[in-house]
Every structure is written in C-alpha cells, then in structure tokens.
C-alpha cells in the first residue's frame, strides 16, 4: 500500500517538475534570445534566427556593444579585420546619466521618508492622523496627475532638464510608499530603545541619526532597492522632466529613441536593451533577499 502511494506521489512530483521546467524555459527564452542576439554579428542577426547558433554555426562579437556604447564616432573592427567607423548611440554617456539621476533619487526620498516615518510614529502633533491618512490615500494616485502642473512650475523656476528637477520629482512620487513602509518598520522599534536615550537628554535629531537610521537599515535596504529599480527603469518621468536633450538623457530614453530610429537594427537594439538591463539584473541577483522583503512589506505585511 505504502509503496503504491509513494509511487503515485513520485509520478506527480515528476509531472509537477516537468510543468515547472517548461514554464521556466518559456519565461527565460526571451532573455536568452536577447543575450545571444546581442553577441552575434550584424549579418547573422538580421538574416537568421538566434537559435541557429545551437546548430554550431555562427560567430560571436562584441562589436554591437562597442557601437551602442560609443560616441558619435564609434570605431570597431569587423570579421575581416577592417577598421570601421559608424555613428554610435552613446549609451555610455546615458549610463552615467542614469546613475546621476538614480543615486540621489534613491537617497533623498529615503532620508526624508525615514524622518517622516519617525515623526509619524513617535511624535505627537496636531493633524498627525489626518496627514498620515493622506499619505495612505496618495499611495495609489497615478503620477500622471502631476505631470502638467509640475512641468509648469519647473518652467517658471528653470528646473526643466535639470538633475535637481528629476530628483525632486522621483522623491515626490516615491515618498508615499517610502513613508508607509518605513512607518510600519519604525513604529515597531521597542519603546525602551528611545526612552533611555531621552533620559540621557538626547535631542530627537540625535536619536534619529544615532538610533532610528541604523536600526532601520533592513527596511531602508528594501525600500532602496525598490526605489532604485523604479527610477532606473522609469521612462515617463524622465521623458517629461528631463526633456529630449541628449546630454542628460537616461538609458531608458536612449533605448526608446533607438527603437524609433533603428527599428530593425536588431543587433544594436538587443545590445542596447542588455546594457539597460544589466544593472537591475545584477542588483536583483545579489540583493534579491532585500528586494523580496521590500515587496512583502509593500503588500503582504502592510
């Protein structure tokens, strides 16, 4: 009897495994196809499917990457050893721009959100409940609502196309979730931790810097990764507030432009897409634990 049941169980486990493997293959094929294509020479990419490399023919090259990363004059060598020049897409500059936009857009909202979370959780002031209710309501407000009014303000004070403008915009749009997540965390810090500090006569700002910030590191890490991926991958906010000028354009903008101007140059598009993806994917694999925690805090734990 028992062995029969176990046999049935084994059969089911195998079926489940096979179904999962099929799903995993379907889910990963798009990325594998992209990576392989980005490494193939132009003629191969444009004339044969990327899966033909599994038949054993076809070369690999880094020229696509050289070209999309290069400036207005990208230099590279083709298969026959000829030195070629072609206009690049200057993604290397966009790469730096993306970092310039992203790093402050992550740190500034975290600083402000942690301070606000501390205030909401551990201070008494009039309107505390009302204000926090507004924060919760703003969690779902689509940022589209702000584009026109904020753009008008920016034009008046000269913030359009500036880094400060987009940092503040990302700060504004990221704050509701940031305050909410950190409030949930900061409010669970045991009361005793603060009490002794207060008895020693510490000011709230000292307590905030010495106690709240260090104690909130796990929550801050989760929120930081969340916000990092959000800002890095954003297209709409960058399009609206950075504008079309190429010297401040971020990676997503450049890639979207490439889709428009190089619609069928798959060897370049795939390389470009991989460059846009590589940082988030590295972050994802090395910091997955915090990322998952952040997601949980954002939805399950509430």
């Amino acid at each position, binding site marked *: 009897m028992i062995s029969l049941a176990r046999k049935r169980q084994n059969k089911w486990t195998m079926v489940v495994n096979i179904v999962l493997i099929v799903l995993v293959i379907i889910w990963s094929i798009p990325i594998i196809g992209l990576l392989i294509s980005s490494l193939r020479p132009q003629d191969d990419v444009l004339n044969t499917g990327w899966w033909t490399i599994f038949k054993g023919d076809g070369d690999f090259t880094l020229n696509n990457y050289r070209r999309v990363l290069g400036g207005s004059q990208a230099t590279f060598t083709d298969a026959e050893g000829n030195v070629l020049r072609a206009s690049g897409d200057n993604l290397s500059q966009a790469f730096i*721009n993306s970092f310039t936009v992203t790093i402050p857009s992550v740190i500034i909202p975290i600083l402000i959100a942690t301070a606000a979370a501390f205030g909401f959780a551990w201070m008494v002031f009039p309107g505390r409940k009302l204000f926090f209710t507004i924060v919760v309501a703003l969690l779902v407000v689509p940022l589209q609502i702000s584009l026109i009014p904020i753009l008008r303000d920016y034009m008046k004070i000269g913030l359009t196309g500036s880094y400060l403008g987009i940092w503040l915009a990302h700060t504004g749009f990221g704050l509701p979730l940031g305050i909410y997540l950190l409030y949930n965390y900061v409010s669970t810090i045991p009361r005793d931790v603060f009490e002794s500090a207060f008895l020693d006569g510490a000011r709230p700002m000292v307590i905030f810097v010495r106690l709240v910030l260090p104690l909130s590191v796990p929550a801050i890490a989760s929120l930081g990764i969340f916000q990092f991926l959000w800002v890095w991958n954003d297209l709409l906010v960058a399009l609206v507030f950075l504008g079309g000028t190429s010297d401040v354009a971020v990676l997503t903008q450049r890639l979207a432009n490439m889709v428009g101007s190089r619609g069928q140059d798959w060897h370049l598009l795939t390389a470009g897409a991989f460059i846009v993806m590589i940082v988030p994917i590295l972050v994802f694999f090395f910091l997955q634990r915090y990322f998952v925690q952040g997601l949980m805090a954002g939805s*399950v734990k509430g």
Partner: protein
Amino acid sequence: MCCAGREVALPAGALVSYSQRGTYMTTIERQGKPTSTLAKLGRIAFSVLVLVGVFFVLWVGFIFLRDSNAPQGIIAIIAIVWGVGGIALLFWVADWVINRTSVTTAKKLQPIIFVGPALLILAWYLFIPTVRSLYLSFFDAQSKNFVGLANYVFAFTDSKMRESFMNNLLWLIIGTGGAVGFGLIIALLADRVKMEKVFKSIIFMPMAISFVGAGVIWRFIYSYKPAGEDQIGLLNAIVTFFGGEPQAWFTMPVWNNIFLIAILVWLQTGYAMVIISSALKGVPSTIIEAGRIDGAGEFRIIRSIIIPFIAPTLITVSTTIIIITLKIFDIVFTMTNGNYGTEVIASMQYKQMFRFYHYGRGSAIAIVLVLAVIPVMWYNLHQFSKREGF
C-alpha cells in the same frame, strides 16, 4: 522592477495588528537664561541668516551644475554629493535653528523638522497637482478660457479615447488575470518540489527589467519578415515551422493588444508568485493534514482550504496589478505608439500634453485615471482604519 507596482494596495487586515503604542514628547531640559527681547530678535535674525545662507550656497551649486561644461563624470559626482549632502545639510540646519528657540517652542516645532519636508514635497508633487489638474481640466488648450465639461465630453466620447477605455479594460482583465493566475499556479507547483528557489528566481527575474527593455525583447520575438525569408522573430519562426503563414502581429486588430499584454504578464507574474508563495507558507499544515485525513484530494484541498486562506493576499496582489494596468504607458509607447488600435489612456494623456499641447484635455484624462483608482484608494483607507493603534 519595471516601473510597476509602486502604487500598492494594502492587504486585507488582521495580518498585522499594531498594539496600542504610546508616543512620547521631547523632554529636553535646557537651562534657560533670561534673555532680553533684543537678544531674542538678534538670535532669530541670525538663525534666519544662516538658513538663507545655506539656501544660497545650495542654489549657487545648482546654477554651477546646470551651466558648467566640466566633464560628464565630474559633473555627475558633484551633482550626487551636492544633492544628497544638500538634503542632509538642510535637515541639520533646520534642527540647529529650532534648538535656538525657547524650550517650549522647540518642543512644538520639533515634529515639523521631521514630518514637514515630506509633507511639503507630497503637497507640491501629488496633493496640490490633483486639485490643479482638476481646475485645468475645465479650461481650453492654453488654459485661458473656461470650457465647462468639454474636455470630459472629449475624454468619454472621442473615438480614440473609447478605444483606450476598451483596451485598458482588456489590460485589466487579461493582464491581471494572467499574472495572478500564472503566479498562483507556479507558486502552488513550486511549493511541492525541491528546486523551488531556482524555479522561482528565474520566473521572478523579469521583474527587474524595465518596460522599455522588455519592449525591445518582445518586439524581437514578434518581429516579422515576408513569407519565404528566414524568420528571425521567434513567434513567426514557430508559426512557419508548423507550416503557417508569418504574421505581422502588431497590426492584427484586437489580438495585438493581447500580444502587448503578454509582455506585462511575463513581467508581473514573478511579483504575484513571490507574494502568493509567501502567503502559502502561512497556511497551517494542520488544516491541510486534516483535509487529507478526511480524504480530500489535492485539487479539493487547494480549492477548499488553500485558496480561501490566501484570498486576502490574492486581492492585494490583484489590486496592485490592476493599478499597473490602468496606468500602463511604457509598453504601448515603445511598441506600437498606440497605433493599430492599441491606444491606452495613459498614452492618450501623454500625447494630448506633449504632442498636441492641449493641457485641458490632458488634465481631464489624468483626472479620469484618478477616478479609476478611487475604489482602490477607498479600499486601502478602509484597511488602514481597521488597524488599531494609530
């Protein structure tokens, strides 16, 4: 994660309930010296001067960054230091100024330092814009003449707008259903095998990819070459392998929407799976065992025990993805630009604003988007107020 999911739905209550928690007041005892009015005024003037000075220094830094021609990398580093340091400096100076006032005033002003900046920014970037967009939505393209409800009439009757509503509905139903459905199935299956972590990681990975990047990946998969040539798009290669005619997928009415939605499902299934999976771990094994002893099969257990138990999580995940589908923009914008009958609301709004410069219509469409999320907002507030201890 692809721009999605920052707007969140709160979980159905009771998972966490905060205990009634006391709040404290600052209890700084400072040795107050009797001061004259003049000295007080002097102190206030000095504090204001310091504040103004800090603002001035930051502004000069900003002008330098905006107009300087230094190499890209150096500008980037200075910009980062200036931006992040500036915020920290502002916090520090505000604290310093407040602590120069009397003890009781400092006590009252203390929360302003912590909560004030956040509230100011939220007011500027989200709260007031909602009111301003509402106001602008009653005016014409240049926001000069009052036009009553004309922009809303446009928003609900224009043929492109009606197409967008239908398409967003498709996104909402198929996108949410697909992502949550696959997420649930994969979470349930992965829960039963040894390689759970590996499987889940791979399904989860697309979450890190931007909508634009995913757009390129899938444009490649859907790419089309005339019959007879070697297909380089995977989908057409499969179709021709089985003897079919290659299709230009993006120009097929209605179906092209489904092909776009598939991208969202590919991206968001991982999110749904991770959240559902953690909820599954919370189902008490004793209940499942009891079900087994009563002779329930695996499917019966899933349907009658597990699903009801994780229903609140399913609602939370669904509402989060519903919000994403309501404001879907990047995928449509990069893939079809709303052509061939794939227009969506957010992309219409973008076009009204930046292509036709019709601020009235753009604002009205944004307000329509807000109206669409009000049920979720109400639900969130309801969940939040159910929790005790605030």
